[in-house]
């Protein structure tokens, strides 16, 4: 086998590789064309001219590099990133001077290579990628001798326990990664819950003001958040920080819409989840978790800008288009004694993207 491989690379192999129907090449190789001299080789004027051109490019490159330094100290940076043609004067001039300098060096060197360096093509013979057969044989012999002297093959107990020992060493390597999410941070059960709880007010995102049911007009869409994201002394919610704040914010985002109550197709078991046509859903797309945002009030469709999953908010947020598979989870709401919208409970299913054990957690 290995012998065949080797001989395949010889010229004879190329001729003899193919069975009888192969014949001589239709046209014989005329060989390399003779080398022709360039103007710069035979005309001293052309040679001098090329020399001057190359040097001129190098000199211009130096000038451009000096201009870079001048620009660096002349132009202020700061909040003037669009002073010149939509670009900051500093960035623009630094980029242009640096670019011109580099380009001139590059073009100069290539011009030098093309005009003034020897341009006769050289021929080098190739060698097979494979080593000569005697080298292969010697290597295989050395390998066998080494394995033989090690005696691993004759002592399966030693061999197998050694493989086992090194294999089991994989466990520490894997286990060491466990604390990438230390302790209870790996509790994936948290995906099933958000910060929403019975009686928590729905507030406007960014500003955090509670929402009066009577304020919302038919056709309105409000981006909302749980009141717990805006803790005050008055509402008594604990201050959230860092990672916890971010993840609760990422899960708790909602959209609140009001439509004609007659437009709503009542979903089984959710008859009491709305307030006079006001209906609230998770803002997090069930596809891969982008916040959905584009609302079309006449059709009650809301579209996720990432992958265009479209949900019909009048029909329990059923997916009407795009790759998502599940409706947006609905937040059951009611009004409190002051007329503000509050949650009846947490979401009744995990929000956002699907995952393996989702149904088990719902």
């Amino acid at each position: 086998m290995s012998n065949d491989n080797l001989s395949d690379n010889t010229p004879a192999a190329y001729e003899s590789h193919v069975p009888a129907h192969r014949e001589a090449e239709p046209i014989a190789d005329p060989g390399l064309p003779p080398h022709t001299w360039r103007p710069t080789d035979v005309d001293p004027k052309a040679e001098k001219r090329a020399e001057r051109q190359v040097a001129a490019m190098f000199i211009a490159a130096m000038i451009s590099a000096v201009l870079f330094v001048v620009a660096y100290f002349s132009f202020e940076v700061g909040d003037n990133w669009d002073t010149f043609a939509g670009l900051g004067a500093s960035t623009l001039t630094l980029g242009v001077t640096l670019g011109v300098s580099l380009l001139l060096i590059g073009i100069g060197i290539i011009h030098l290579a093309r005009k003034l360096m020897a341009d006769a093509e050289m021929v080098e013979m190739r060698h097979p990628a494979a080593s000569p057969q005697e080298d292969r044989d010697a290597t295989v012999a050395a390998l066998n001798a080494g394995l033989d002297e090690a005696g691993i093959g004759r002592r399966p107990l030693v061999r197998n326990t050694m493989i086992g020992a090194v294999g089991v060493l994989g466990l520490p390597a894997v286990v060491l990664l466990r604390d990438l999410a230390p302790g209870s941070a790996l509790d994936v059960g948290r995906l099933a819950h958000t910060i929403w709880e019975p009686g928590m007010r729905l507030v406007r995102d960014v500003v955090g003001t509670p929402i009066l049911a009577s304020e919302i007009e038919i056709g309105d869409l409000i981006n909302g958040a749980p009141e717990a994201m805006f803790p005050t002394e008055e509402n008594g919610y604990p201050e959230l920080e860092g990672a916890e704040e971010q993840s609760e914010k990422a899960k708790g985002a909602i959209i609140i819409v009001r439509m004609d109550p007659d437009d709503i197709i009542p979903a089984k078991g959710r008859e009491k989840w709305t307030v006079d046509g006001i209906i609230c859903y998770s803002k997090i797309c069930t596809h891969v978790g982008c916040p959905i945002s584009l609302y079309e009030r006449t059709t009650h469709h809301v579209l996720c800008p990432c992958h265009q999953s479209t949900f019909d908010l009048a029909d329990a947020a059923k997916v009407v288009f795009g790759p998502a598979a599940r409706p947006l989870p609905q937040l059951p709401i009611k009004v409190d004694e002051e007329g503000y919208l509050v949650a009846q409970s947490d979401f009744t299913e995990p929000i956002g993207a699907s995952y393996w054990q989702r149904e088990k957690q719902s």
Partner: protein
Amino acid sequence: MSTDSRLDTSKIATTNGTSAATTSKPGAAGSLATWADDRLGLAAAMKKNLRKVFPDHWSFMLGEIALWSFVVLLLTGVFLTLWFNPSMGHVTYEGSYDQLRGVGMSESMSSTLHISFDVRGGLLMRQMHHWAAMIFVASMMVHLLRVAFTGAYRKPRELNWVIGCVLLLLGTLEGFTGYSLPDDLLSGTGVRAADGFLKATPVAGAYMSFLLFGGEFPGESIIPRLYIIHVLLIPGILLALIAAHMLLLVYHKHTQWPGPGRTEQNVVGYPMLPVYAAKAGGFFFMVFGVIALMGGLLSINPVWKFGPYDPTKVTAGSQPDWYMGWPDGLLRIMPTGWESVIFGYTISWNVMLPILIVPPLMLVVLMLLPFLEGWITGDKRDHHLLQRPRNAPTRTAVMVALMTFYGLAWAAGGNDIIAIKLHASINQITYFMRVAIFLGPILAFWITRRWCISLQRHDNDKLLHGYETGIITRSPDGAYAERHLPISESAAYTLTARDRDEVFHAGGDTDAAGVAAPNSRSERVRARLSSWMYSNNVQKPTRAELEAAHHHAEHEAELTSGLDHPVDGHQFDDHRLRDTDEVPLRDH
């Protein structure tokens, strides 16, 4: 090694001096080389490699663009690390950019703004880094196409092809981890989608997400973790693989196009020192210069316009960097509701198929291409001469089909942008793409293969009947015919410098002794594939066919020789048969 290492340099660079070089006194370079060789012993290797021959062709420069843009990435990247702070710690921005002053954001976003607005040259370096990354991935892809279309991946270069595919994958991941670092609204949206992809992994998905993010999304760990992956882990592997890629290139010697004097056994071109080194080195400066100009003149990833990441916000028209576009497009055209629940466990086909299954599958298919082709042809020879794409019609068509798949998936990733620009319905575009992604590659395959085969016929016509001059002659009996003139010998040789394809035929199911042949089923598959790949190809003419055709052409020429004078007004048209030393035949 070199057959004409003693070049006729009599007329070259006379300005360097007119006396011949002598060995009597080693120059400065000589003494330095001696000093180094006493310690490193590199002379044995250098003696071969300093004058190593590299063939020249514009398409060999594509991989060089990738190499040099990687160097630019290292240089600009190091600059950025001097100020960038990969932390998700919350700060209030107090820098120069007015519109975000007083806004809360992560330290990584804040330091990105600092680099952009308060470090001179910082924005330039950021933009150069981003442009260089785009060029890096793009040039790797175009280089890959060049290698595939010319058959350069055949033995002995299959492993270098696999290394190249891994480099493309790593370059893509490097790009993703890089553009996620500023923690702006656009990149944060991408990271959240990536979190969704992880969660779609069966069994361990949710745990993988929690481990990567250090808890629940988004946590405070993801940016520092992506950072170390971006600046150490992936670049380290990239460097090692690029070194291996280059070493194998040097060991195999570069492929070359066939032509007079250029055979499977030699390599014809310029020596590394000085011409190739000068050209490649000069080209580095040019790539660097173009990237610098782009960084100065073309705005890219203006994170200050997106604002800091907020998990409750998103911008319409969110697009990843271009090389991430095609899996995103596949994601977008998945039909509604492809999710199943089996024994209470959720399997999200709508995410798994376009992200976790098809892209890795495409990569595996790509890596296997040279091995599949080698198995079908059974060709064990080394190949150093490139093939024109037309001379491997099926391979070319397969590549074009893959490109079409890629292009359509990529376009689907911009379906929202297309809808806005063309005032079209995004739903209709998506429905169209769902069908086109299957039909497009098939159509592209068929058209490309027929196209290649007719180009092969055209080549044979040129060989047998000459090239079309465009001169119409009228014979005395009134018939019109176009004059054909023979192509030059070197052009004719180049056209015929290719192997004849052989269709593999499986032997019988049983051997002579009546024993079932081993692998007979796989042999039959191989025979069918071989027939599918090669039986429609046009083979080059035989010597006899060529001679017969030339004999015929001479006869024709004799018949029409009396007519060989142009009509009034066309006396100076450049179409007369010329075959003198001063005016060689037209090189068609």
